[in-house]
């Protein structure tokens, strides 16, 4: 089952070891300005950030410092006002909506603070969602991949349940399985433990750390929790839209 997650060889490489690091995501001179009729808000100011393959990076900072904006930019959900974003060495600013969607589907997995599971779908159906948008993939393969991803997060026994029947921690595991299912280059997690108590938060953190160490998954995590941040390889700090460390 393990190897099912690694079927596309070009998207998965060996865990990065220090020196020979290859960048998965590179942000250069990123600026993001929100423009309304009267006021201009600078959400991000001259951000330069490179995420290498196999890294686990945490992003920290107080509320409103631009962390979430950064994460949506990294996830290609939003476009910067200026600067370039490169995914796997390719700049994406000229990409169409459909191309961006394709890129998100192939390269990026999201984990949200409030899980964002689709309540109307069972656990396994939820995990399948990213695979549905991969036109070449058959139904059987989708199902197998989803089950493999659920196995990875330790939820094989709950594939037929619905989100409302699960605890918060379990829901977040499903969300992580969903992020894993497509075999992405990078997982972007927006305060994945923010809605959980400390015990469950710890479990989720361990799961992410395990994925990073054992399977070499690249992870960027926004967090408030200093303890958690310290467990990751690198901490990037933001204040008022600017990178401070």
């Amino acid at each position, binding site marked *: 089952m393990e190897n099912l997650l690694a079927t596309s060889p070009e998207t998965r490489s060996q865990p990065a070891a220090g020196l020979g690091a290859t960048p998965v995501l590179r942000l250069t001179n990123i600026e993001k300005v929100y423009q309304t009729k009267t006021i201009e808000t600078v959400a991000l100011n001259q951000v330069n950030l490179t995420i290498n393959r196999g890294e686990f990076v945490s992003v920290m900072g107080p509320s409103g410092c631009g962390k979430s904006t950064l994460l949506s930019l990294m996830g290609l*959900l939003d476009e910067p006002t200026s600067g370039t974003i490169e995914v796997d060495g390719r700049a994406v600013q000229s990409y169409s909506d459909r191309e961006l969607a394709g890129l*998100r589907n192939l390269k990026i997995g999201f984990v949200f603070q409030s899980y964002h599971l689709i309540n*109307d779908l069972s656990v396994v159906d939820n995990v399948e969602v990213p695979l549905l948008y991969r036109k070449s993939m058959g139904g059987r393969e989708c199902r197998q991949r989803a089950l493999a991803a659920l196995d990875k997060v330790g939820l094989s026994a709950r594939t037929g349940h619905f989100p409302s029947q699960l605890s918060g921690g379990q829901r977040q595991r499903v969300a992580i399985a969903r992020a894993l299912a497509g075999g992405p280059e990078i997982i972007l997690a927006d305060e994945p433990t923010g809605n959980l108590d400390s015990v469950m938060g710890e479990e989720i953190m361990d799961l992410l750390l395990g994925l990073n160490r054992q399977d070499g998954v690249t992870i960027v995590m926004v967090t408030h929790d200093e303890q958690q941040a310290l467990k990751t390889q690198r901490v990037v700090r933001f204040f008022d839209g600017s990178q401070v460390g």
Partner: protein
Amino acid sequence: MLLSYLKIAWKVLMRRKFFTFISLFGVSFTLMILLVVMAMFDHLVGPGTPAKRVDRMLFVNVIRHQMVGGHGWMNMPASIHFVDDYVRKLKTPEKVGITTTSSNATAFTKSKLLALDLTYTDGNFWQIMDFDFVSGRAFTGEEVKSAQRVCVLNETTARNYFGTPDVVGRTIEIDLKRYRVAGVVRNVSAAHVYAYADVWVPYTLSPQFYKDNRLSGEFLVVLLAPSAQAVPAVREEYRQMVKRVEIPNPKEVQAIFSYADPVLASFTRAILNHQDQTVDDDNIDTFYFMVGGLALLFMLLPALNLVNLNVTRILERSGEIGVRKAFGAAGPDLVGQFLVENLVLALVGGLLGLGLAAGALALVNEAHPVAYAHFALSWRVFGWGMVLTLVFGLMSGVYPAWKMSRLNPVAALRGSGEQK
């Protein structure tokens, strides 16, 4: 993928029962009304007893006489001379029959006046139309030729006059003239204008049975083509034949025009022709255009209603939309998904509408607004119903789907309905 959409669609339907009820009410009643109208239309022009082979039939209603010197037009049905010497000589039709529009006749029973609709026909008419005989038989070409006083009655007339439908060989007095009953047929709907009557008698008894060379009389011609494919050929031969017709009174009549049309075209040509009558246009395209426009107009308000509901409920789905976008759904994928959802809703509504239409038609039949008409759903009506369902589903789904697909994913994930 589709399966997943269908699953979601079903869940969404079941989640807010009240909204589902409102939506289904709108869809099903809209389609019910359209289906009822369509069933009536189908009854009018579709195949049905006795015009079972209507797809092979062509009808000639009038001969249009263009008067000399711009003195207008005279539109009259055909004379026997025209039928015998021109129409019956055509090579392509398998059979040529004649009938008339029904005229009022009276029969008296012991204390009651029976108002009857009486039609004159020839022997072929009975072979082109497939009447259901309760007893007896049609009158034959021979009986027509020798102008025998025979008649065919419908069941109701036989019952009203004699008290029983089993009356073959007995005598009925209509307009104080006596006829021998050759057969009794099941009642024919008055909506079948070419076949309906209470009493049928040989055309040779008609006061309009003139033997001179006039062209106008009172006879409607029914041509039976050997097959449905041969219909255009018959139509064309008729068209050519009309050009050769000799006008008996050229000092008054400049030219004549006449067409053999399939049943619907024969109505549309008569009803919708307002322009130059010399132009050969059966107006069937105009008819479909008008009918389609009216149907769309009628569906507009319920569709708008559904659009309104769907748009209002976009917020409910913002989380899902955000997730799908984040995981790689492009705009068109989402449009596709929500269209499928709306089509499922329309389909369920359409099936309900079909059931409601069956009920409504039963009520209409109970009230019988048209004599002896029995309106029913057919497979054709069902097929059209499904087409309409599809149109309705698209009409009411496209805008909300488009709107949903344009939700900003970042905002959607935060749970607000902000647009891109």
